[in-house]
C-alpha cells in the first residue's frame, strides 16, 4: 500500500480485522470483566477458606436482613432488564427511550446501593463492623467491593448517558457499559448465596 493509499484510507486498512468481530472497546470490556471475575473469585475463595476453617462461624442474618437481600436482588436483576432496554433502544436509534431506560437503570442502581448501606448500618447497630473478627472483615470486604462496583457503574452510566445524549458517544458505548452492568449483577448472584444465605440465624 502506497503512502497516498494510507493517506486516503488510513492505517486501519493495514491492520487485520478483529478475530472476534467485535469493536476493540467491547473486547477490552470483556477482558476487564474476566480479570474482575477472577478478583471476585479470589475474594470468595478466601472467604470460603476462612468460613470452613472456623468451627464457630457467626450467623447474624435474621429474616429482616434476608427480606432486604431479596428486595436488593430483585432491584439489581430488574436493572439488568432496563439496561437491556437501553442498549436495544440505543441501537434502534430511539434516543429518548434509551435515555429513559438508562436513567431507570441508574435509579435502580442507586436504590440498590441505598438498601445495601441500610443493611450495613443495621449490622453496625449490632456492633458488627469490619473490626469485629474474621466475619466482619470478609463480609464487609466482599460486599464493599461489590458496592464499589455498583457505585462506579452508576457513575459510568451517568457519564455515558450524558455524552450519548450530546452525540459525543455512540450506541456501541452504551452497549459496552451495559456489559459491565450485567457483570455486576452476575457477581451478586454468587455473593448472596455464599455470604448471606449460608449465614442465616436458625
Amino acid at each position, binding site marked *: 500500500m502506497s503512502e497516498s493509499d494510507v493517506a486516503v484510507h488510513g492505517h486501519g486498512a493495514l491492520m487485520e480485522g478483529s478475530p472476534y468481530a467485535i469493536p476493540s472497546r467491547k473486547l477490552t470490556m470483556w477482558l476487564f470483566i474476566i480479570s474482575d471475575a477472577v478478583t471476585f*473469585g*479470589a475474594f470468595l475463595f478466601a472467604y470460603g477458606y476462612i468460613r470452613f*476453617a472456623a468451627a464457630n462461624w457467626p450467623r447474624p442474618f435474621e429474616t429482616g436482613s434476608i427480606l432486604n437481600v431479596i428486595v436488593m436482588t430483585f432491584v439489581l436483576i430488574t436493572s439488568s432488564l432496563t439496561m437491556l432496554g437501553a442498549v436495544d433502544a440505543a441501537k434502534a436509534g430511539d434516543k429518548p427511550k434509551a435515555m429513559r431506560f438508562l436513567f431507570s437503570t441508574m435509579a435502580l442502581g442507586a436504590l440498590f446501593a441505598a438498601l445495601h448501606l441500610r443493611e450495613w448500618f443495621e449490622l453496625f447497630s449490632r456492633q458488627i463492623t469490619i473490626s469485629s473478627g474474621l466475619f466482619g472483615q470478609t463480609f464487609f470486604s466482599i460486599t464493599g467491593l461489590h458496592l464499589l462496583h455498583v457505585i462506579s457503574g452508576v457513575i459510568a452510566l451517568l457519564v455515558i448517558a450524558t455524552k450519548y445524549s450530546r452525540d459525543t458517544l455512540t450506541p456501541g458505548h452504551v452497549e459496552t457499559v451495559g456489559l459491565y452492568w450485567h457483570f455486576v449483577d452476575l457477581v451478586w448472584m454468587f455473593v448472596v448465596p455464599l455470604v448471606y444465605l449460608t449465614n442465616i440465624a436458625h
Partner: protein
Amino acid sequence: MSAAAASGNVLLKYLPVYFSLLAIFLVEVFLSFQHFSTGKLVVILLLLALASASLGLMYFMHLAEERRSLFLTLIPATIFVLLLMNMIWGDSVRLLHMKPFAQ
C-alpha cells in the same frame, strides 16, 4: 416495522430469562431455610448460582450471539483459573480440625 417499534420487543424477548433468574434466586432462599448441612447447602447454592450466571452471561451479556471464538477464548481460561484456586480447601479442612501438616 420501524426500528424504534422493534426495540420495544426486546424486553419481551428477555422476560423469560429475567423470570428464570428471579425464580432461581427464590429457590435459593427457600433452600437456605431448610435444614441442610452447611457443606451440602453451599454445593446446591453454588450450582444454582452457576445456572443463574450462565443465563446472564449467555443472554443478558449476549455471549450466545457473539462469535464462538470469543466464548472459547474467555470462558475456559476463566474457569481454569477459578479451578486452580480450589487447591486451598484441603488446608481449610485441616485447620477446622486443627490437624498438623502431614509429615
